[in-house]
């Protein structure tokens, strides 16, 4: 974390797929599998028992520890992105090949190797700014 002032919570990571986004955050402590775990026709999380079960990924920044499951998940991410159903940006604590590949072939900005605390500090509904050129995530406004 760079600073703790209310308006100035920021995390540094590595911009893996360049790009930027400003908008609502969707945060989970559980890894996601895009193959089987996300409905390719709606972009909703459908893995039974998952924290984000039923949540829509579209239009948000998805913040998670890392991906899991088959590398075919990369193709699912691509397919979602083409229909406007994929997250607008993805932030991970650890890099994994499935999410990296999916983001690269779909042009989704990916910020990776962000400190794990991000999962405690940022909550669903916070407004964040993700700059994957410089490798920074900034929290612009907190959910009350």
């Amino acid at each position: 974390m760079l600073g703790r002032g209310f308006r100035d919570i920021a995390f540094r990571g590595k911009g893996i797929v360049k790009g930027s986004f400003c908008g609502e955050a969707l945060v989970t402590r559980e890894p996601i599998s895009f193959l089987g775990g996300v409905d390719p026709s709606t972009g909703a999380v459908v893995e039974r028992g998952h924290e984000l079960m039923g949540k829509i990924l579209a239009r948000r920044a998805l913040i998670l520890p890392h991906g899991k499951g088959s590398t075919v998940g990369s193709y699912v991410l691509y397919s979602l992105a083409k229909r406007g159903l994929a997250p607008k940006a993805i932030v991970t604590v650890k890099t994994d090949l499935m999410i990296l590949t999916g983001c690269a072939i779909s042009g989704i900005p990916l910020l990776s190797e962000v400190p794990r605390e991000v999962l405690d500090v940022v909550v669903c509904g916070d407004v964040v700014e993700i700059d994957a050129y410089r490798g920074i995530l900034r929290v612009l406004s907190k959910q009350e």
Partner: protein
Amino acid sequence: MRLGRTEKMMLEGRYGEACKRSLELIVAIAESYGRGELIKIKSAHVSGVSYKSIGDAGLEYLKDLAEGGAKVRVKTTMNPCGFDLDKPWLFDVDETFFEKQLEIIKSLEAMGVQPSLTCTPYYSDNKPRRGDHIAWAESSAVIYANSVIGAYTNRESGPSALAAAITGRAALAKDHTDERKPSVMVEVTAKIFDYSDWSLLGFVVGRLVPDEVPLIKVKGGTMGDKLKYLSAGLGTSSATSIFWTAEQDFQEPRDLKRIVVTKEDLKEVRDRWALTRRPTVILIGCPHCSLREVKEIARSLKGRRVRRGVMFLILTSRSVYRKASELGLLEIFERAGAHLVKDACLAVSPKKLSRNDVVLTDSAKGAYYAETMTNATIALGGRRACLEEALGI
């Protein structure tokens, strides 16, 4: 990252959108897993060919690439799909599945990928030379290319191998350097006889040291097709991309950690996959058989017939199949009621296997995938046992 002129132009989109996105993927991998550098490659081999594995999303991606005019820049071959295109009935393929599979293959072909449909491209379709830098997917072929041929490749995924093919570049990581030295010595005290022993040995070593580069010492030495089975077993249970054997010319690092693989280690897995009932499906050729293996099997089949109620599948590549045909071997298989099959891999096949099926194979990789992907009972036996069970001798 240091980029050459062509690479910069690729990223600017001057070679088209597909090439740009593909290089972005290779760059992202180089920055995350590699050393922030790219390396030019001489060939590629892509996996993720079966409609069963990649589904509509994968088909859509490949179609978009092909329609966008993407072309491979190096010799590129493709992994098997789930059935023999000329004998789909053997694999419970319905019309939709068949059509979708053809679309996948056509999209890859439109990009210039050869329809080799095999996991053993190194036998004839795509033969790297010692020292070549290549970008291959398919773990058994990766390990074989690195360890037996002496080429250099990362363990690529389907999409990354294709991106490497389109850009002619791979991420420069440890597997492309001479730092890929053994990190553990595996002394094998168990006696290793046939192909199934070799695949089982690879499988057991991979389970014991999943993240290491093993130096494998086996009494009597190692060579030829046996090493293909060792590569496949090792690739199934580990993340390793290379192994070393005592016969290879290299300086053995000092103070290597040492483990022993005993008869009991192999027996434990063998017992789990012991044959307890009559097999309904017998599978040879995981990875695909070489011409020598096909000839050997043909000799055993000559003048005999496969027992009723048994489907005997011998998997090989199109190119070996063609050679077998030229040698007049196909008739022997047909007369015996055995199926010499090309293009196919059971692990990615729509073939329906029920709880009542018993699959006997001489490959630990085949056994592992058949077990995880179907409800059938799985058995591992030697090649001789497979032939004897098939022929009832």
